[in-house]
């Protein structure tokens, strides 16, 4: 299942929810808030999400993983709201009998979650500036819409 939460992700409790005497392998991934991006000094991140579609699309991704690999359990939790450096933004955990399947399914889930879920992150920089991450790929060009730009990422302060 896919879960969204505004509270800190407790990976120790989550892994306990996956425990199963038939499981021989547990592969997991965590995305942590890092203090830099594209050479800029990041102070915190804000995750804007559209939760209903995150849950339905994330659950679809996990079902795809179950269809493709022989795994026992797969779970994913994603944070929303304001996160500090070092906090866990997303966790994926997969159990299986042997390790091949756990690794492959874990990788598939995080890759798909990153591109398919309606989640946007806004970085807040050391100098007080901020910017939406990756939004430059969208085709939103400077000057075509009447808002302030900081010239860095083509986005609003």
């Amino acid at each position: 299942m896919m879960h969204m939460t505004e509270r800190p992700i407790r990976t120790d409790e989550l892994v306990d929810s996956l425990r199963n005497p038939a499981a021989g392998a547990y592969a997991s991934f965590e995305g942590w808030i890092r203090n830099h991006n594209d050479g800029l000094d990041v102070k915190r991140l804000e995750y804007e999400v559209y939760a209903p579609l995150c849950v339905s699309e994330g659950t679809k991704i996990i079902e795809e993983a179950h269809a493709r690999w022989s795994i026992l359990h797969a779970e994913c939790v994603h944070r929303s709201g304001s996160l500090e450096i070092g906090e866990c933004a997303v966790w994926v955990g997969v159990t299986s009998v042997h390790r091949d399947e756990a690794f492959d399914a874990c990788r598939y889930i995080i890759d798909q979650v990153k591109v398919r879920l309606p989640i946007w992150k806004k970085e807040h920089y050391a100098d007080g500036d901020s910017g939406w991450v990756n939004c430059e790929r969208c085709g939103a060009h400077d000057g075509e819409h009447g808002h302030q730009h900081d010239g860095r990422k083509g986005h609003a302060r």
Partner: protein
Amino acid sequence: MKKKITVRYFALFREHAGISGETLESDADDAASLFEQLKHRHGSAEPSAHCKVAINDEMADWDSPLSDGDVVLLFPPVAGG
């Protein structure tokens, strides 16, 4: 034919529009046409492959037809990493 469409803007689109959503009348046949009509709002020049659309809480394609009463969610590119 005019249809009543509710639009919701997210992230950068919401900041550009200055509102999180609106209900409007549109003759747009598909999501791409609506996106084009609203470019003064969301600030994006064209429906990019990196932008996404959902209709009534289901992910949709840009050429999905619109019906009266649809709720259209306009998603700028996701963070992706």
